[in-house]
Each structure stands twice: as C-alpha cells, then as structure tokens.
C-alpha cells in the first residue's frame, strides 16, 4: 500500500498498468512539488535515494520508512493527539474531487452495485446499445481479475476502462479518479461505473457518483435488501433485473420492494429484463432525466459567474 497518498493495495491495475504513485515533497526552502514514479527501487529505513524529475533536476532526499522505535513501555513522554476524523475521510476527499470534475463537465455518473451474477454487464451492454445516437456513454469496469467486462463494453463501441482491484473487494474514489483521467469522457455524457460484484463493501465507498444504483436479479432471494441493508440504504434506485424469468420462479416482486423500502423508504424501483427489453424504456428515461439535469447544472454554473465578473470589472475601471 502506498502510505503517501493512500493508494490501495499495490496489486491495483488500471487497464493492465500499475497505477503510478504521486508523491509530494516539501523542500528545505519551503516549496512543495509532487511527481509520480514507480516503485522499482527498495526502500531502506532512513536511506537516501535519487529521483530524476521531468524538470530535469536530479536531487536526493530522505524517506524514513518504518522509523526505529522501542517497545519498552514508558519510553519518552506520552501525550494525547486529537484526530476527530472520519476513517473514510481520505476516500471522501478523493470522491469530492471526482464529483467536482464530473460536475464541471456536466457528466452524470452512476455507481452500479450488486452481487456477482445479477446481470450488470449484460444490462450495461443493452443500455449502451439502446442509447446509441441519443446519449454518449463511457464505462469504468471494476473486477478483481481479467478485463473481460471492459472488452464486452468496448465491443459496443463505447469507451471503457478496466480496473482490477486484485485482492480488493470494492472500488475506491482514488482508483476511479485515476481511471477517469485515462478515459475519454465527453462533456454532458453518462459515466457508468460498474463496481466489483459485492453487496457489502462498495456501500461505504463514495466514488463521486451522482447515485448508486443497486441491481437485484429475481433469481436471488427477495430478502436480500434486509440481509444487506447498507447497500440498499445507500442506493437511490433499485433495478429488478431478469424479470422475464418471473413465471418460472417463486420470487415475489411486492415482497422484494417492501423489504427494500423497509431499509430505504425513498428508494425508486424499476423492473427490467436486459434479455427481452421489458422495462428498459423506464430505465432509459430515468438515465436521460439525470443526464440532462447534470448538463443543465453545468450550463447554469458556467453562466452564473458572468454578472459578478462584469461587476468586478466595473469596480476595477478607473473612477472618473
């Protein structure tokens, strides 16, 4: 794990590349700069090493890793340090950056969460196909291993990037920020982030999305919302997928909705089938409403600062 910027485990790969680590250094003269480099050298406690910078100065500085410490109790003077910070505050700060970047570009971003096998990728492929010519879509795919899902998305013509979390069980805002930088994101578009199939951990990690959308397929238990309440509480919309299979199952749609509303009274529900296309119109309309609202907010924000600038200019012009 990168202890400087809070990168996740080192095995995180974005489209097959290890993510580079940004380091920030404060120099003796008080100036700060940051640069990225790969960890192809060993860190020895207290050792000095050199980095070659793009600005082509080379210099050395000390990294103290694993400072020496004594285990004997009572060594040194003890004191209390107040922290009062949320454990997820680092992730939340990265998420806020992502959210700002998305808002500035009028991009409507969704974080799609579900158990493995709920049909997320099939639903995404179908959604992209139906939106062709109406709405531009880009996709960030999260899986522990393989880039199969990103390849399925790219086959539709939409840009997609794969994040492999390695041992990680969820995407975090830092990984998504890196992936957003590598992805061609048109203004006023739709960004779909397909999280790792897991109904537990992704609930707690804000990625900077506008909404979490939870997908529950009718081949799962209808009591999943109360078994995994955090996820259903965090979501704005529940898509009930594979509805074409309902005649063959004992799954009760009203009971599933009742369970979901028990943990989240405000959750919206749309029943869909990616296979037959049933309910897809309602889902596409929901997406287009969100996307045009995001684009509208961007336009309003771009236009809003103009009057104050004009006032400022008037104020700055020499009084006659």
């Amino acid at each position, binding site marked *: 794990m990168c202890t400087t910027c*809070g990168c996740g485990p080192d095995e995180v790969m974005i489209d097959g590349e290890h993510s580079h680590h940004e380091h920030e250094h404060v120099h003796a003269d008080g100036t700060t700069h940051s640069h990225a480099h790969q960890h192809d050298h060993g860190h020895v406690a207290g050792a000095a090493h050199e980095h070659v910078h793009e600005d082509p100065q080379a210099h050395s500085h000390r990294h103290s890793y694993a400072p020496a*410490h004594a285990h004997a109790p009572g060594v040194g003077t*003890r004191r209390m340090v107040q922290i009062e910070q*949320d454990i997820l505050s680092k992730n939340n700060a990265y998420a806020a950056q992502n959210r700002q970047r998305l808002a500035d570009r009028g991009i409507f971003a969704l974080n799609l969460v579900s158990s493995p096998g709920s049909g997320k990728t099939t639903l995404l492929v179908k959604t992209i196909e139906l939106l062709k010519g109406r709405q531009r879509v880009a996709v960030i795919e999260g899986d522990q291993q393989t880039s199969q899902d990103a390849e399925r998305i790219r086959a539709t013509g939409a840009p997609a990037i794969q994040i492999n979390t390695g041992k990680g069980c969820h995407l975090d805002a830092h990984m998504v920020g890196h992936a957003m930088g590598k992805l061609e994101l048109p203004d006023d578009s739709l960004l779909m982030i397909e999280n790792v199939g897991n109904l537990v951990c992704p609930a707690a990690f804000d990625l900077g999305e506008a909404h979490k959308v939870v997908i529950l397929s009718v081949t799962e238990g209808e009591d999943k919302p109360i078994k995994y*309440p955090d996820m259903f509480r965090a979501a704005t919309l529940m898509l009930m997928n594979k509805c074409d299979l309902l005649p063959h199952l004992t799954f009760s749609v009203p009971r599933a909705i009742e369970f979901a509303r028990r943990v989240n009274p405000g959750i919206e529900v749309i029943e869909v089938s990616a296979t037959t296309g049933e309910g897809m119109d309602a889902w596409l309309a929901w997406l287009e409403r969100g996307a045009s609202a995001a684009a509208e907010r961007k336009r309003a924000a771009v236009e809003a600062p103009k009057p104050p600038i004009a006032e400022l200019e008037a104020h700055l012009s020499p009084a006659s």
Partner: protein
Amino acid sequence: MHEMSLAEGVLQLIEDAARQQEFARVTTVWLEIGQLSGVEIEAMKFCFDAVTRDSIADGARLEIIALPGTGWCMKCAMTVPMAEVFGECPQCGSHQMQVTSGTEMRVKELEVA
C-alpha cells in the same frame, strides 16, 4: 463489513498526524464506532493488528468507543433508539425510520510517545 480497508484508513490518518505533529510512536488509538455502522469490532481489532505491524502503530492498543444508534420515526415524529439499520420503532413498530446517528466511524484520539 470491510474492516481491512477501514484499518488501512485508520493507519493513514495516524501516519498523516505523525507527519504533521511529529511523533514517532503510537501507543493507544481510540476509535468511535457507531452501532449502526456495520463494523464488526472483533474483525476490526484483528485487521488493525495485521495492518499496523511494522508501522508507527505496531503493538498499539485499540480502544473502541461504541456509540448508540438512534433514528427518527416518521409516525411518532420523535427520535428513538435503533439497534439495526432496518430496525423498527420501539414505540409503534413502524419501519418508516431514518437513521439519525450511530453510523460513525471516526479516529477520535491517539496516545503517542
């Protein structure tokens, strides 16, 4: 839940504080964990020990301050205790509840040397 990631988050906050406030060793860490946060305390302790090995907090004692869960019952129009996120109102049995506290996961303070 995802105690390993949370334990890494705790260590990051500790290391940030160590850089800013210049201490080299942490002996005790106090966490505030809400009853409705979904954090498994025993798993958290186990992961904390694993994550802090060979770090500035190696061997540090982990103290958990449990915070009670409360929610707003829309039917009773009052704040009532809640034991589960999807719990029912102890007064009227309604599920129309909004969690108002108990989801905290915070690093409160450290004892450092």
